[in-house]
């Protein structure tokens, strides 16, 4: 088992080291790192903007690049949160707690250095986990029938919508909306147009690019316009030599790094708990086991190393269910899966055997990309710090152009640009009503496959709805769904005092307030 995995990995390196693939990977992590640094641009918006640009390149290159944007932006976000106290991306909210005090003490450079090291450690572990776990998962998943796939998707959707930010009920509502948007277009079996309002342009369904750019582009811009204050660049003067942590700092950060890595990789295995939750849980744990918990928040290097390591190990681990089961854990993964589907690749357990170049090439490119990131971040720190000062008023109009042209170029159809405006307005209204639009994308991507498998399961079982609890594996997934719901209700009705989730919720709220 191990030897086959290593042979496959070797093959993957062969794919990922092809010059054009290295180039796409480099472009991906470079752009990702850049937008991660820019205040006000998230990985979701960036991946959606870049998505139309990847239609022309081969699937392997496209996926390597989009994945690179994702983990590259996690690196960049750390710079933003440590030096400016701005958590541009939710996972970095806890990094601010100790990162910014360190910056004020003049140790911001060292914090960044530790961040680079812990990110690399975390990511390496996450990748290793993916190499060995994915093939095992695939062996199991290939035995799944439509009923099992259906229940697994239900579990994935439920976890993705209830464990994410905000109220679980609203998350579920958003997921259902996503599933409904996925229905728009011609029915796969009978060809009946559904929810198209008689508009022929909608017969092919809503384009994922239009949906993503509307929700994470236009709606986000409408929310952020004139809301972002001028950044305070008092502390951003960081030079290459500042990055070196002292021996003492390194000694304290090292164990924290490994604990963070472990927590992150565990969180990655639970569907729906992405990097954000991983970083909060690891920070809380670190604070708990520390001999001096009262010093957290005043600039403890452990408080930077631990969440960063766990973020990265969970970011890489998030790819496991996405690539091996075809079930994305969050909106970013849903977008990457959508990109695969646009390239004509069917996601699911058969992906590894049918497209080994994509799977193993992607894994190998993670190593390459992470090494590129270390190389990019250490000597070029001055450039990234300069980028922090680009004002939002230049950023969003340029992004608007990319939104328009990107949506247009998917089908060379002006109608889609109109579609993106409508989706943007609806998205902003949903944001105002406290709905987080990320689960919409999850539902949208899984929707058609969910319906297809549901219909097939019912056909095979001759209309017996109980088929989902009669098959043992499927029953297990359904049981997990029920457990998830019961847990949510329990936490609502009787909030446990010291449970980590509580801390998570409280810090999350504080952090999101700080972000706004």
């Amino acid at each position: 088992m191990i030897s086959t995995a290593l042979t496959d990995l070797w093959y993957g390196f062969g794919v990922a080291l092809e010059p054009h693939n290295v180039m796409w990977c480099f472009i991906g992590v470079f752009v990702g790192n850049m937008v991660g640094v820019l205040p006000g641009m998230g990985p979701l918006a960036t991946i959606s903007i870049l998505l139309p640009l990847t239609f022309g390149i081969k699937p392997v290159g496209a996926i390597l690049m989009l994945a690179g944007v994702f983990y590259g932006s996690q690196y960049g976000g750390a710079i933003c949160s440590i030096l400016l106290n701005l958590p541009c991306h939710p996972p970095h909210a806890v990094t601010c707690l100790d990162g910014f005090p360190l910056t004020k003490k003049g140790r911001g450079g060292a914090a960044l250095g530790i961040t680079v090291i812990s990110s690399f450690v975390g990511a390496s572990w996450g990748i290793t986990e993916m190499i060995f776990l994915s093939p095992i998962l695939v062996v199991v998943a290939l035995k799944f029938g439509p009923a099992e796939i259906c229940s697994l998707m239900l579990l994935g959707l439920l976890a993705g919508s209830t464990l994410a930010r905000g109220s679980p009920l609203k998350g579920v509502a958003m997921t259902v909306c996503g599933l409904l948007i996925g229905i728009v277009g011609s029915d796969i079996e009978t060809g009946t147009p559904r929810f198209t309002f008689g508009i022929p342009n909608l017969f092919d369904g809503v384009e994922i690019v239009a949906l993503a750019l509307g929700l994470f582009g236009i709606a986000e811009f409408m929310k952020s316009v004139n809301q972002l204050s001028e950044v305070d660049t008092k502390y951003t003067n960081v030079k290459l030599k500042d990055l070196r942590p002292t021996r003492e700092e390194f000694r304290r950060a090292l164990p924290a790094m490994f604990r963070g890595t472990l927590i992150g990789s565990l969180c990655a295995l639970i569907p729906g708990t992405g990097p954000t939750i991983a970083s909060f849980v690891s920070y809380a744990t670190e604070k708990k086991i520390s001999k001096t918990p009262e010093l957290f928040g005043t600039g403890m290097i452990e408080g930077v190393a631990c969440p960063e390591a766990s973020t990265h190990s969970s970011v890489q681990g998030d790819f496991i269910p996405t690539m091996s089961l075809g079930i994305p854990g969050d909106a970013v993964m849903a977008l990457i899966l959508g990109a695969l589907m646009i390239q004509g690749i069917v996601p699911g357990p058969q992906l590894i055997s049918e497209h080994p170049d994509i799977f193993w090439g992607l894994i190998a490119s993670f190593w390459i990309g992470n090494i590129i990131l270390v190389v990019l971040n250490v000597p070029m720190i001055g450039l990234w710090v300069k980028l922090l000062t680009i004002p939002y008023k230049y950023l969003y109009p340029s992004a608007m152009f990319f939104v328009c042209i990107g949506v247009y170029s998917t089908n060379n159809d002006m109608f889609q640009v109109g579609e993106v405006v409508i989706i943007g307005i609806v998205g902003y209204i949903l944001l105002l009503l406290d709905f987080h639009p990320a689960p919409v994308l999850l539902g949208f991507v899984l929707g058609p496959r969910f319906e297809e498998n549901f219909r097939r399961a019912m056909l095979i079982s001759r209309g017996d709805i109980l088929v989902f609890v009669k098959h043992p594996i499927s029953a297990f997934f359904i049981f997990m769904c029920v457990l998830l719901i019961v847990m949510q209700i329990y936490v609502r009705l009787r909030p446990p005092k010291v449970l980590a989730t509580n801390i998570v919720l409280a810090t999350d709220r504080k952090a999101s307030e700080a972000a706004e």
Partner: protein
Amino acid sequence: MFGTLVKKRDFYAGGLMTLLGAAITLDSMAYSLGTLTHMGPGMFPLMLGLTLTLVGVLILGTAVVTPLSNDENILPKNREWRGWGCILAGPIFFIILGEYFGLVPATYSCVFVSALGDRTATLKGSAVLAAGVTFFGVLLFSYVLKIPFPMFRLGH
């Protein structure tokens, strides 16, 4: 009781979802439902519509039981009508000018109009920004990616 209810954000959130769910449930009846074994195109939307209605009612329920908090304004404190208008006008200019005059005017107008949404934006600054984005954007999309969108055209 009802007076405080209509001030709550969740009242509108839940109400919107309930209405949407009900509308979809009703609409999906128009497609053939089929049987459970051979599901028609209407069955899956019907199930989703019912779920959404239920979730909407539950959100409404939480609005009723939770006390009124002081942060229930749906619109943000500063209403950025100018920002919102400009951001939405950008793509609309892009559609109209793109359809009749080509990529360059479309790009320029889209960036220029969107940029005016910022409160500190000046006409000159926006014009320069728009010119820059147009130059590099056209270079990227017309020459490198070769999308079929003429740089200039007259009429449709």
